[in-house]
Each structure stands twice: as C-alpha cells, then as structure tokens.
C-alpha cells in the first residue's frame, strides 16, 4: 500500500496581510497515518480547509489517486471520500446524535436505518453511543465519537483529524489510537493534526512540519525526539522551565466543601470540592474539558459567590465576595476564554489592563482613570511578556490568540498576586512562549504566591505543579504529589475511559 492517495503540489493561499500557506507540497499514501505538525498560525488549518473544500487555494494543485481534485465545497470533498473530524464547531447541541450524524452525510438513510448503522459502527469500533441522545448532554469524549462515527459511516478514503485528543483522557486517547490504527490497516489514510509530539511519535508513519505557512521538513516521527520535532516547529531552541526548590509557607487558599449548582443547561455542578494551597505551591488541576473547570474558576475568582466560609484566604472568609473585593485582597484569576471573558475584544490593551489592574496598580485617582499610568502598566506587560502588537492602543481582538494570551496572563502576574488561579494559561500559545509563561508562573510561586493552574495539557501540569488533582463531573479527586505520578494513574484520576472499549474487529 504505497500508492499516493492525495498529492499536494505547490499549494499557496494568502489572506490580506498574511500568507497562510506558501508553496506547500507533500503526498499522503494509502493507509498511512500522516501527521501535520506546526505551531498555531503555521497554516495547518488553512491547509486542511483547502483539502476539505472550505477554502480555495490561490495557486497549486491537488490530485486524488492521480485525478485532479478541486473540491468547490465540503460536499464535493465528502463525495470524493474525504472526511474530517473537527476540533470545534461542527456539532449542534440541541439536536440528537442521529440528527448530527445525518447533517454530516451526503445521502443519509431513513432515520431508523441510520440509528441502526450508528449502533453497528459504534460497536465495531468500540465507541458506544446512543443515537437518540441530545448532543448537548454528552461529555467531550462522547461528542468526539459523534464526529468520528459521522465520518466512518461515509466510508472515507482519507480521514482528517484536527487535534482530536485535546479533550480526551489518556485511556481514551489509547482507544482512539487503536481505532485509528485499525482504520489505517483497513486502507484508510489519516491526516492527523496535532501539536502533542509524543502522540505523534507513537502513532504516525510520517510527519510534515509547517512553520509560518511553509513546509520546513518531512520526517519519520518515531526516529526523531520530541525535542527535535519541537525545535523544527518553532525554528529555534528554547529553555525548558525550571522548577526551583522552594519552602512551602502558610496555607493561603482554603476551600472547604464547595458545591454550586450548574450555571446553565449544559454546565457542570460543583460537588463538595475541598483543597488547600500553601504559599509557594502550585496546585495543578487536570481533567477532561467540561468537568467543572470553568465553574471552579468562576467560584474561585468571585464571579459566582458562595457561603463566606467556603473559601478562605489566610483564614479570612472570602466566599461571599465579588471579583473586585477578592482582587483587592490579592486573589487574581485568568479565565480560559480570551475573547469576551479574560479580555474585552473591542477595547484597547490599555483599557483591558485597567479593567483588572485598576485597584492593585493604583490606576485610579478620585474615581478617574489615570491614563498615562495605565498606559505605562500595559506597556510594562507588553515588554515583559514579549507581546507582539503594534502598540498598547491596539484592540484586543486584533492580537493573535497566543499574543493575547501572553497579555492577559502577564497582566495578572505583574499585579503580584498572593493567590493566582488560571485556566488553560498556555492554550494556543507556541512552544517558546508557553515555556515563558510557565516560567513566569513558577517564578511567581518562588516569590511566595499560591497558584492554582487548571489545564487540559498534562505535560504542562507535570512541568509546573507540585501537587496534582483531577476534576471529574464536578468532583475533585484526591490530591497527589506530582513526583512519581504515572500517566496511567492520572488517567484513572480523570475518570478513566468513559465506557469505551478497544476496537474488536479482526484486522
């Protein structure tokens, strides 16, 4: 099976001001698992959108089994045998599993036949799923099964997967890989997009690495080290964050029996969460997305209040205080969603700096904003955290995700918090910048702050935290010291494989 399935030749696509893909050429062979690696903004998404017919290339050609392949729309790509599992944005919460699957198919069978087919395929590949369930009630892992089954029902020749493991527990990842290897052995080619290097090394036959829209290398991932791959992606070497030995101080943040009802129809209730964080300590909280991370951040930051005694800062009850009061006491936070939660998208960086830094940085005088001082603070953040922006007057929306992330985290770090709670601090940030942010968090802890880092990136949690806990359906597991913790143990803490089983079709 070494015939070329999909050939890409000189693909170029430019958007105003940026060349997303510049003369990219590579081949995907029948039945191989091919990795597409690159930082955010390297052009991976644009490239797969061209293959899937969502974007038209400016120049360059594609061939599918030797014939010209120019999908004008996703429908044409699907008809030609290309299927795609999206990272976000392709499911409909209020519709049922069967309806979601039907929407992604060209000629869906009658509802009853479709339900039967969904059951068959889901059993064959060990992805159990009830066709009648409403998608909004499913866990992240189950939602991904919906997408995968939608693709498998169309019997694809090429399956594109865009960062499929970011929402899975390690056990679920292993089962997904079994499914993918089985598919590949049956002759389906898989284009696998990810920035998780260890996964790619264990799964993929070949890797194409993109940097700033250009193909920089093709390699066999199993023969390269993760660090080599990372440096090819970034194009430079970078420092790995160093954890300094530091004495733990008094208990700063003390949470006892925190329970809150779910904020909305599709939210997660918090159930009896208790933990303590000491000065100089970093508590890492993992867990699959949607298991209470956002809700816990909201409760700790003061967006949702609780009984006063449930949350204590240095033995002072703060559970009934709002975010502003907590900020004044030194409890700062950085939520996951950058646009609209951590930053107001249409306001300038200076204005965004004032929004959380007003009190602690003394940016107000007599109720009025001291603009020169605010500008100074914003520029301080920009300089210290290497935020790439034309200036401090630029709107937050105009920054790339990674740069804005550096800004919103830096803004909190420079306010020298006593307790800092962050959710997904390096989400969508390139490896070098992520290392810098992690180092800043570690330095903060070394200076005596207590940190709670919520993240879905286990490598990140292992790198920064002293103790680790996992959120599962709004409950917090026991907290364990990070030293000596294995991936299997972490997976079990995260809830294990949610009734998934290994594919059991004979290859």
């Amino acid at each position, binding site marked *: 099976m070494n015939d070329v399935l999909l050939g890409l030749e000189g693909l170029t696509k430019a958007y105003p001001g940026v060349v997303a893909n510049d003369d990219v050429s590579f081949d995907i062979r029948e039945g191989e698992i091919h990795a597409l690696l690159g930082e955010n903004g390297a052009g991976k998404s644009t490239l797969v959108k061209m293959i899937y017919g969502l974007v038209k290339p400016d120049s360059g050609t594609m061939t599918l089994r030797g014939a010209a392949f120019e999908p004008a729309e*996703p429908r044409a790509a699907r008809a030609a045998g290309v299927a795609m599992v999206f990272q976000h*944005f*392709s*499911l*409909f919460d*209020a519709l049922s599993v069967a309806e979601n699957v*039907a*929407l992604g198919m060209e000629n*869906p069978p009658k509802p009853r036949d479709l339900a039967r087919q969904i059951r068959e395929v889901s059993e064959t590949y060990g992805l159990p799923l009830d066709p009648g369930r409403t998608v909004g009630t499913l866990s992240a892992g189950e939602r991904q099964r919906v997408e995968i089954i939608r693709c498998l029902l169309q019997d694809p020749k090429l399956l594109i997967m865009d960062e499929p493991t970011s929402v899975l527990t390690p056990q679920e990842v292993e089962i997904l890989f079994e499914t993918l290897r089985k598919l590949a052995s049956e002759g389906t080619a898989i284009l696998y997009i990810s920035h998780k290097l260890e996964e790619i090394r264990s799964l993929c036959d070949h890797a194409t690495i993109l940097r700033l829209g250009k193909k920089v290398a093709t390699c066999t991932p199993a023969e390269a080290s993760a660090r080599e791959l990372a440096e090819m992606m970034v194009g430079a070497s970078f420092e790995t964050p160093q954890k300094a030995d530091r004495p733990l101080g008094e208990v700063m943040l003390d949470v006892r029996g925190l329970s809150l009802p779910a904020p909305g*129809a599709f939210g997660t209730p918090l159930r009896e969460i208790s933990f303590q964080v000491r000065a100089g300590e970093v508590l890492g909280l993992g867990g699959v997305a949607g298991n209470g991370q956002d809700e816990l951040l909201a409760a700790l930051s003061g967006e949702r209040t609780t009984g006063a005694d449930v949350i204590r800062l240095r033995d002072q009850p703060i559970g009934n205080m709002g975010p502003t009061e907590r900020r004044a006491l030194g409890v700062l936070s950085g939520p996951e969603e950058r646009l609209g939660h951590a930053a107001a998208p249409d306001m300038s960086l200076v204005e965004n700096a004032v929004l959380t830094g007003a009190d602690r940085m003394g940016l107000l005088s007599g109720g009025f904003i001291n603009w020169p001082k605010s500008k100074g603070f914003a520029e301080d953040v920009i300089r210290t955290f290497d935020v790439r922006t034309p200036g401090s007057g630029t709107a937050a929306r105009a920054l790339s995700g990674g740069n804005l992330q550096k800004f919103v985290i830096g803004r909190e770090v420079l306010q020298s918090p006593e307790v800092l709670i962050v959710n997904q601090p390096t989400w969508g940030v390139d490896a070098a910048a992520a290392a810098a942010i992690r180092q800043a968090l570690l330095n903060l802890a070394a200076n005596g702050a207590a940190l709670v880092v919520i993240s879905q990136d286990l490598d990140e949690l292992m790198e920064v935290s002293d103790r680790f806990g996992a959120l599962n359906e709004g409950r917090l597991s026991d907290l364990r010291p990070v030293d000596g913790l294995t991936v299997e143990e972490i997976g079990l803490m995260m809830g294990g494989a949610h009734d998934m089983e290994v594919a059991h079709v004979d290859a």
Partner: protein
Amino acid sequence: MDLSSINPVLLIASIMVSATPILLAAIGELVVEKSGVLNLGVEGMMITGAVVGFAVAVSNTSPGLGFVGAALAGALLSLPFALLTQYLMSNQVATGLGLMMVGLGLSSLIGKPYEGMKAPPFPKVEIPLLSDLPIFGRMLFSHDIMVYFSVALVVAVWAFLKYTRAGLILRAVGEAHDSAHALGYKVRHIRILAILFGGACAGLGGAYLSLVRVPQWTEGMTAGAGWIALAIVVFASWRPGRVAVGAYLFGGVSVLQLNLQAAGADVPVALLSASPYLITILVLVIISARGAHAAPASLGRPFHASH
C-alpha cells in the same frame, strides 16, 4: 348583562377568523427564528401586506389575487432586511425595527386612495357533507380557504421541521451557524429564504385583516398584531403546535371580550380590551415555565463566514 345574546356557534366561527392573521404571521416568524434570525419587522410586513393585498384585490375585484400580491409584498419588503442583516452584518434588532417603521409609513402612503372602499367579497368554501353537519358544520367547516390554509400551513411547517432533511438543515443553521458552515451548508442562503418565507406569511396575515376580518383599509389597522405574533413565537417555545394554541387563544379572547362588551358585562371596558394581550401572554408564560425553552442557540447572532 345578557349572556344569552352570545351565540356559541357564531363565537367559535368568529374566533377562527380572528385568529387567522396572527397565526399566519406567527408561523412565518417561527421559521425565521428557527433559522437563527430575529426579524422584529413583522408588524410592518403585515400592514404592507394588508394595504397591497387590499389594493390588488380592489383593482382586480379578486381577493385571491389580493392574497398573492400581499405575500409578494411581504416577501419583497423583507428582502432589504435579509440583505442588510446577512450580507452587510447590520444589527438585526435595529434593522427589524426600521423595517417596521418603513412598513407603517409605506402602507399609509399606498393606502390613502383606498380609504373608505369596501373589499370584494371572499367566498366561503362549502365542503360537501362536513359543511352540512349540524352546529359543527357552521362552526368549523364554513370558512374561507385562508382559514384552512393557515391551519394546514402550521401542520406543514411542523412536519417540515420535524421530518424533512431541509427542515433539519434549517434548524441546524439556527442552532450553530459555525458548525453548519463547517459542514458546508450555505448559512446565508438558507436564512434569506427563511426571511422571505416569513415576510410572505406576514403579508398574508395582513391581507386577511383587510380583506376578510374587517374588511376594509384603515391606517394602522394591524394595531400591534405583528407584535403579538412575535410574542407568541417566543412564549410558544418555538413550537408550531403551541403557536397555534397561542394564536387561537388570542383570537378567542379578543372575540369573547367584544361579545362581553356588547352584552354589557360589569367589567371596565379598558380591562376587557386589554384582556386578549394579558391572557395570551399569561397562559403562554405558564406553558413555557415548565420544560426547556429551547430558543435556537444562534438566534439574533450575526454570522460571518470567516470566523
């Protein structure tokens, strides 16, 4: 008070006539909102339908042509709304309110020469056997074609949304336009078609007022019926069946309170006149208080293909 002056057969028959305009407008708006667009201009499209339908019917002495003209006028008036909100990303609430104002102004301009005229008679449909039934024949089966059309339309919309693929796609677009776009559905086209359908339905509803219910043209004759239609869609939790319940309830109470006024009921007239609005909203609030509200998740959010 003399309740015996109220004839229940005539009462039910006039309730059906009274509910039809609102039912037509509301079922159209339901489709629009299911596709994720909030068009607040229903009142304006209704009254434009009323005046154009009246004018066409009078000029051709054909109420049938009048209804066709009204549907076209309603759809035509909704077209700028569709283009502004879907292509130029204008704010749906502001554009919808503007559409209402345009409709009101335009209708008085067009309607000036037609004031005081009488609409050509619209024949009732005689259904063999059914129309001859005692009591029920008179009550339910001796109406004009539009009454039956409106009921059939509700059933058709219900079946379309529940059982057809096109209906599923429409709901999907209203639920998550980014997902629908990623799967290759043409979000804008689908929404524009839905908006045009809603405009045509509102136009029909307006024409039913000026051609059958009243039947003549007076300025501002819709008197808030379009707003009631909008409210009914929301409180009916975007379900066709409940929209019909809401529309008939409103029509029913409107007719009943007129009868009560005529019978000299010992209730302040102002309260009686307000009662259709109060009771409809109250009942629908109680219905929607339990269970999920299920507003289309993308309702009123602008869609930009590049996101």
